Each structure stands twice: as structure tokens, then as C-alpha cells.
């Protein structure tokens, strides 16, 4: 069970659900690689927009089989914003798949069968011990904290999690999910409404960048989701996070050699690379990415401590 892994110096890696709209073949290739990557678990499913799901849902059972054969824990994510009837049915169906569900919209909690345990994703507002305990009481076994939380809050929550048998996970790598909306910004950029979007978000493998009028790189739109344009990285915080009792780092998928990214974090966590070495490799692997870790530092999320 997950909480056996909780405790200092026992941080493992969790691959979060893919936020982007990739072709089915790309999805297959990605999870094929993840099955060989040094990660403990993978959360899979459509997280952002239910309209995308028909295009790649056929890949999900194949990926689950592949990942489980490779010894990974697998959970299914709910959507981050559930409004339509169809989306509620979709969420209810997730509960019957025989896998843990990662709740990313609190409404899904009501659909979790009595007595079943579940995971909680970063889109659920777990800011304090009271909420963590309430969720634990309803069956939460893992909680990935909201990415905007500073280290001080993470430490208090990891401690509370230990007392409740809940593994606490922190946003470790990837563009940060900053907002979710009823409106599709990708469609809006193409002068289309959400209902006639023609799936334009599929044109941008890592979302579409938004810069300021002064050319400052700023945000990334991904359909109804808004992400940071920086790639958040907890690389420089591995020691404090381990001391705080954090159980896992969440790595959020992007294009490029993501398996190599996972390897860098695993090596750094195992102490076989210094954070500085891993950062150097990461920068070489990800040209064009800029790193940030301001949220953990308690400041503006876009900032980088290095």
C-alpha cells in the first residue's frame, strides 16, 4: 500500500495525466516509454477536455496493461472541471474500472463507492490539515497538493498526512496547471466557440504560448486550461521535501524525451547525481524550457531560485 513508502528520504516518482491533446500513436509511444521509466506510478486519463477523449481513449486499456505489467501503480484521473451530464456519466464509469481513481474535481467524490479508497489530484484545494483529514476520513490514500503551496505548508500537510496514512505528493516537474475555465482559449484564439473548436488544441503538443506585449514569456493555453509557460522543477528542493516527509514528486508529461527527464529526477533522488548535475542534464534535454520553483519558495511562481 502506498503509505508504506511515506517517510524521510523515500520520495518516489508519479507521472501525472497528460494535459495535452496528442494523437493516439503518440500516446501509445509515451506510455510504452513510461513502462520502462524509473517511476513508481502513473495517473492516466483525460484531465482537461472531455471532447478529446474519443480520439485516444482506445489507448487507455493498452497503456494500463503495459504499465501494470511493468510493475507500476496506475490510477485513472477524473476531468478537472465536470459540468456536462455526459461528463458526470463518464466520471461515474471510471469508478467501475477496478483501478484507483484520482479525483481532480471534488464532485467525483460523491461517485466514489462507499468504502473505496481514492487518490486526490493537484486540482483539488487541499490547503490545510482540516481538509486533508476530511478527505482521509472519506478514503483518500494519496494527495497531490496544489502547486501554489509554499514549502512551509507542504511540511505541515506532509506531517498531517503521515498521521492519517495519506501519502503526500508535490508538483515536481512540468508546466503548472494555473487555471481551468468553461471557455476554451485555444478555440478563442482561432475565433471559434468551444462547441465548434475543431480540436485546434491538438496542433500544439505542449500548449500554445502566450507572451506579454513586451515579449516576456508568460503563460501557455491548453484548451480550457491555462498553464505556466515555465517548467516548474523541484530539483533544488529535494532535501527539504524529503525532510518534510513528502512521499512523491509529480512529473507532468510533455513532448521530447520525457523518460530521460524521469531518469534525471530518479538519479537525483537516489543521490547518484547532485541537483546541479541533474539541472545541467535537464537543461540540455529541454532546450527552450525555462525552469521555475517560485511557488515552493513562497513567492511568485514564475521565479527560479537558481
Amino acid at each position, binding site marked *: 500500500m502506498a503509505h508504506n513508502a511515506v517517510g524521510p528520504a523515500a520520495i518516489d516518482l508519479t507521472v501525472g495525466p497528460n494535459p495535452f491533446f496528442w494523437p493516439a500513436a503518440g500516446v501509445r509511444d509515451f506510455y510504452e516509454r513510461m513502462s520502462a521509466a524509473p517511476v513508481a506510478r502513473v495517473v492516466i486519463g483525460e484531465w482537461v477536455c472531455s471532447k478529446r477523449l474519443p480520439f485516444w481513449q482506445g489507448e487507455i486499456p493498452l497503456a494500463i496493461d503495459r504499465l501494470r505489467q511493468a510493475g507500476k501503480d496506475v490510477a485513472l484521473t477524473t476531468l*478537472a*472541471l*465536470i*459540468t456536462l*451530464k455526459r461528463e*458526470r456519466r463518464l*466520471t461515474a464509469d471510471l469508478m467501475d474500472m477496478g483501478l484507483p481513481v484520482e479525483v481532480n*474535481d*471534488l*464532485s*467525483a467524490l*460523491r*461517485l466514489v463507492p462507499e468504502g473505496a479508497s481514492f487518490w486526490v489530484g493537484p486540482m483539488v*484545494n487541499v*490547503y*490545510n*490539515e*482540516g*481538509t*486533508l*483529514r*476530511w*478527505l482521509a476520513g472519506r478514503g483518500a490514500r494519496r494527495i497531490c497538493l*496544489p502547486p*501554489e*503551496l509554499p514549502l*512551509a*505548508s507542504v511540511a*505541515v*500537510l506532509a506531517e498531517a498526512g503521515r498521521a492519517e496514512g495519506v501519502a503526500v505528493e508535490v508538483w515536481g516537474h512540468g508546466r*503548472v496547471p*494555473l*487555471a*481551468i*475555465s*468553461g*471557455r476554451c*482559449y485555444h*478555440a478563442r*484564439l482561432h475565433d471559434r*466557440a468551444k*462547441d465548434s473548436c475543431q480540436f485546434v488544441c491538438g496542433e500544439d503538443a505542449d500548449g*500554445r*504560448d*502566450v*507572451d*506579454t*506585449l*513586451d*515579449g516576456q514569456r508568460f*503563460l501557455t*493555453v491548453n484548451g480550457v486550461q*491555462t498553464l505556466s509557460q515555465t517548467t516548474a522543477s523541484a530539483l533544488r528542493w529535494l532535501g527539504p521535501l524529503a525532510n518534510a516527509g513528502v512521499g512523491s514528486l509529480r512529473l507532468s508529461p510533455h513532448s521530447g524525451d520525457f523518460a530521460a527527464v524521469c531518469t534525471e529526477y530518479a538519479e537525483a533522488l537516489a543521490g547518484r547525481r547532485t541537483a546541479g548535475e541533474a539541472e545541467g542534464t535537464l537543461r540540455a534535454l529541454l532546450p527552450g524550457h525555462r525552469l521555475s520553483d*517560485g*511557488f515552493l519558495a*513562497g*513567492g*511568485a*511562481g*514564475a521565479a527560479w531560485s537558481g
Partner: protein
Amino acid sequence: MVMELVCPAGTPAALRAAVEAGAHAVYCGFADETNARNFPGLNFSREEMAEGIAHAHVRGVKVLVAINTFPRAGDEAIWHRAVADASHAGADALILADPGLLAHAADRHPGQRLHLSVQAAAANPDAINLYAEAFGVRRVVLPRVLTVEEIAAINREIDVETEVFVFGGLCVMAEGRCSLSSYATGQSPNMNGVCSPASHVAYSGEAGETVARLGGFTIHRTPKGQPAPYPTLCKGCFTSGEQTGHIFEDPVSLDATRVIPALARAGVSALKIEGRQRSRAYVAEVVRNFRAAVEAVAAGRPLPEAALLGLTEGQAATTGAYAKTWR
């Protein structure tokens, strides 16, 4: 039946103005990080809250106290104290968002009426029924991402009251689930009760333009002498590829006056006016217009022509998500 008009008060003066202008209920918060309009110079001390509630109650008006940020880990006592103080001061309802705080209030203040804040972003019947069953919440403020048809469908599946925004600032993101502000400034609605905080705003004149920046990020540039709106992040002007413009939302504000009859038919119990940061003059004028509107709707009369445009941001208004085309 007349829909309940729930009106903002950032100061005791605004509370009195709202009561005088015809509010059925006024919502306000304490002058600290426990409420989502923790702006400089605004909100109520403990004494002002008690006086405000007494003032309203004498005139038959309710006071709803918003304690709708998410308590900081390790500092929950600050929020617990706010709940206790508001309850003891005689608040008609507490407007809460955080499940942990709701659990605390339901446990320690069992007689206290609880409303679910828009910051909880309960956008479907499952979420609403969850909060109703778990904490006895009696009313839900719906997020501004729903169409009128969706609101009607929600009301058919729930037993608690619904309250919707009809006027004022417009969040384009699901409320309570947005970290854009903290990404640029370190301060967020959820943690600090502020969005695009004034402390991180800088206006400067550059080559005939007024540049408004938030946390160093340019939010808009306007020619000198033109209106330079407050740099709320999601209303900014940005560039993406070949396109430059208001990528998230134009600097418009919500005016759902025309939708009030449809909202009434959709089973909505209460209409909310945004704007605890606005002046008592604004509050009085908007409340007066909306009170006339809800009275007209209840009596089956046509809506009075509301002359509210001068009070909206950038002089333009939208019916927002209530119309499906907004998406």
C-alpha cells in the same frame, strides 16, 4: 416570489448604503486574509461587523459573512476564530469555501446557516449535493462558468438554494481554482484573498503610453489619456503567435439584468452583485437598479431600463457564461 438581492459591502458606509438602497442581504468580511476581498483599506473590524449586523437587522436586512479563503496549513485557528466571531455577532449565514473549514463550522457551530462560496467552484449537482450532505450547506453560490440551461438542470437535481452573480467583475476562470495571480505575484485569491494585488501593480508612462504591470509582467499598454484599466491578469492584452489581444477575456464586466427572468424560471433563489471593493455610491446605485428589476420580475412587469453602463469596467458589459456563445 421576489428573488433575494445579495449586495456587497467593503466598508460599514457601503453596508448602510446597500441597506438604504434596498438590499435584502448584504455580504461582507473581516479585515484580514480570511476573506477573498482582502484589499487595502477595506472590510470590517470585529466591532464594525457587530454594528453592521445590528444596523441591518433593525431594518430587516440579512448579513452574510464571507470567510471564503482556504485556511493556511498550521494557521487554521485564524479562520476558526473568524467563524466563531461571525457566528456570535449574529451573522445570518457564513459563506465558506474550504471543506476543512466547513467541517469545522458544521461540527462546532451546528445551528449556524452555511452557504457555499463561489470559491468552492461547485459546478454540478454532484458537487452541490456533496457539500449539502457532508456539511449541511443550505445555499450554493454558483461559479460563473454555467449557462442558464445548465443552472436550471442543476436546480432540478438539488434540494438547496442557488445564488448567482448578476453584476460586476467577471472571473473567466473557475473561481477558487486559479493560481494565475500567485504565479505572477506570489499572492492568490485562495491563500491571501487577493487577485492581481495592488501591492504588485505598477503604472508607468513610457513613450506616450501608460503601461500597467503586475509583478513585472506587462498586462496592458494604453495610449496616454485613454482609460487604463486595472491590470487584472486574466483581462490583460497578450500576444500568442500572430495574434495580439485579450486572449482570456476582454475588459468587460458582467451585467445579467436581461437574464433575470430566465434565472427566475431556472429556479435561482438569490442574485448576487459583485463589488466589495467598489464605493458606497456604486453600491447604492447598482442595488437600487437591481431591486427595481427583481420587483418588476416578481410582479410580471417588464424590466426597467437600467442605466448602469457608466459603472462597468471599460464601459462595456457582457452576459458572460449565461449565454452559451461566451465559451
